[in-house]
């Protein structure tokens, strides 16, 4: 019965070794304890002794290959009666070369997740996350339970952290029948809008200019064109669309009012993309009339109708609800005389339009009634100074009171 000569494991972490040289030759007679071959390990060269006596055969080749521990590398024809029987080697039939499994490679360089690099060429951060909201876990728990929007709570803790007391102060007082009152969670749209508007108020220093603008000429101009436009595009031009037309052109003459804050700089936009604030099932959405300064009244009317219908039907893609450079908000149809709006970040201004009211004004020493609308411009004082805003408003008033739609 042949006795196996195996490549021995000698170190705790050893998995393979290399036969460096045989000290005996095929067919030699060997005795137990004789050195048969030299083995190379990661640490040093080691002599391997014979496990028994007899004739040694089938020596494995010396070719530098890594051999797995336990692999037979030769056989001894055993002649002693009481020699230990060879173990059933698990690798007896395995090839003499270690399998292709590579030694444990050092951990591959983990590629660090690359944060999206912000460069000056990036588009304005209309879709970026707002800065992290600091709030203690307990404050968050209370806010969740009471329906308070953390983003709207002023944090009294360190670094503006919202603490429980801040939330408690904001939460509605508890009524005896509080259980009967409805608690309506924000829709996704509202949640996002709420965050952005709160951020706008927090970060943009708003100031307001008001102008009472005479609408006589504009009304007349619109009614002149109404039938033609309607015939061309299927709907009549509204006051809002007309104002968008005029504001877009005025913005081209006052670029700082058609700009966005980007870091410590103002990005001046090439086009006037006018957002029109609209209500959709109780939520505020702002579809955008793109490149408004190049479009005719008819084109703008058609586009506006399309946007309005798309908003109502919930078919308007999100891309059309974002990215304006200036916003118009008209609450006149709801009977509001005047109001000031919150800038739609990252824009630098927003125009709030009140209702047209016959108002007594002085003309040529007489008191007459004229249709006036109160327009309020909210501007971001980081980009727009008082004079800049005033000049824009003057220009806009002039366009409205002496409109030209060619």
């Amino acid at each position, binding site marked *: 019965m042949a006795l196996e000569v195996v490549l*021995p*494991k*000698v170190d705790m972490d050893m998995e393979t070794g290399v036969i460096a040289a045989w000290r005996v030759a095929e067919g030699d007679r060997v005795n137990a304890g004789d050195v048969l071959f030299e083995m190379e390990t990661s*640490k*040093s060269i080691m002599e391997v002794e014979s496990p028994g006596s007899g004739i040694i055969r089938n020596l494995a080749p010396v070719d530098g290959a890594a051999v797995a*521990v336990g692999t037979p590398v030769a056989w001894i024809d055993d002649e002693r009666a*009481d020699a230990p029987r060879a173990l059933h080697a698990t690798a007896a039939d395995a090839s003499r070369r270690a399998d292709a499994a590579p030694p444990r490679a050092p951990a591959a360089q983990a590629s660090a997740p690359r944060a999206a690099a912000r460069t000056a060429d990036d588009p304005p951060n209309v879709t970026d996350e707002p800065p992290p909201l600091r709030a203690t876990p307990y404050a968050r728990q209370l806010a969740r339970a009471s329906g308070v929007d953390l983003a709207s709570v002023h944090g009294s803790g360190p670094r503006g952290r919202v603490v429980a007391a801040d939330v408690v102060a904001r939460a509605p007082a508890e009524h005896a029948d509080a259980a009967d009152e409805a608690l309506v969670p924000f829709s996704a749209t509202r949640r996002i809008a709420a965050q952005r508007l709160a951020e706008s108020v927090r970060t943009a220093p708003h100031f307001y200019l008001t102008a009472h603008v005479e609408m006589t000429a504009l009304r007349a101009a619109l009614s002149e064109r109404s039938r033609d436009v309607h015939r061309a595009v299927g709907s009549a031009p509204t006051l809002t669309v007309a104002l968008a037309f005029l504001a877009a052109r005025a913005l081209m003459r006052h670029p700082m009012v058609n700009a966005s804050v980007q870091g410590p700089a103002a990005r001046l936009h090439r086009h006037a993309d006018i957002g029109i604030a609209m209500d959709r099932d109780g939520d505020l959405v702002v579809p955008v009339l793109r490149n408004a300064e190049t479009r005719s009244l008819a084109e703008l009317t058609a586009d506006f109708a399309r946007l309005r219908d798309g908003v109502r039907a919930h078919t308007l893609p999100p891309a059309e609800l974002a990215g304006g450079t200036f916003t118009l908000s008209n609450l006149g149809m709801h009977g509001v005389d005047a109001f000031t709006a919150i800038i739609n970040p990252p824009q630098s201004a927003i125009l709030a339009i009140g209702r047209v009211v016959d108002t007594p004004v002085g003309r040529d020493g007489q008191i007459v009634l004229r249709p006036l609308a109160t327009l309020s411009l909210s501007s971001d004082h980081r980009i727009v100074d008082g004079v800049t805003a005033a000049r824009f408003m003057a220009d806009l008033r002039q366009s409205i009171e002496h409109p030209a739609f060619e």
Partner: protein
Amino acid sequence: MSRDAVRAVKARVRPELAALDRATLRTALLRMHLIRRFEEMAEQSYMRGLVHGTMHLSIGQEASAVGAVLPLRRDDYILSTHRGHGHCIAKGADPARMLAEFFGKETGYCRGRGGSMHIADVEGGNLGANGIVAGGLPIAVGVGMSIKAQKQDRVCMVFFGDGAANEGAFHESLNMASIWRLPVVFVCENNQYGMSMDIGQAMAVANVADRAAAYAMPGVTVDGNDLPVVAAASRAAVDRARRGAGPTLLECRTYRIRGHSKSDRNLYRTKEEIERWRAADPIPRLEGELREAGVLGPSDVADIAAEAQRTIEAALAFAQSSPDPDPADLLRDVYAA
């Protein structure tokens, strides 16, 4: 005249051999064969990658282990070293459960949690091999205190190597065993080397037993490869401890044929030295003496060797077919109750 003495005179055998009856000698030789076969089997398993970690073989030191333990009762205690497979078998451990432990199996003496260096057979009086050099010495002091406090007549035998004799724990332990006259037998298996450092460079005195005087106990040095001599010296020390006369330091000078552990390249000693000690192999030496003295015939010796071989092969089969522990049991037995 005792029968032993008569036999001694008749057969011209030395008293140490005559002091051991045939049954005892047969048991001793069987245990030495068991140890040898076991160590070789463990070695083979290791070389084939079947055993995790490393192991410390005592091939060549069988007479020291078996001779020292021979006079002990089953209820006497031993504490052993990282090179403790031989002590464990000498004390009567089941090689199957030992090998199962080396294979990390649930059926091993330590349920796979300890491995070669921590092998223990608590029911059989083996309070464990120890992975820390000199780790067992202070523990032996406590065992001695415990035996005295419970008024038992047991003995605690603690094994250690020449390297341990330079640890602080050695000195503290011998001192306390002596001042309190504890029933402890300190057995130093001096195999001339720590890991790679020879005792001539490591130790200020020539024999470990020279230090016994510093602790006012008997110090005895014997040829650790001569089983009857080891047994005789051990018997004297064990009897002394058992009758309450206190501890003894017994030094068995021996040699380990294999390296310190499996990764030892043997760069610190010469082949000639290893060969010289291989020629002084305690097993053939004892067999020769027993045959000459007419205690055993050649077929007896062959039978013993074959019995040992069978036992070890059965141990291998048992170990290989035993189950592995369940990782869900990882935290079991960290604490009692």
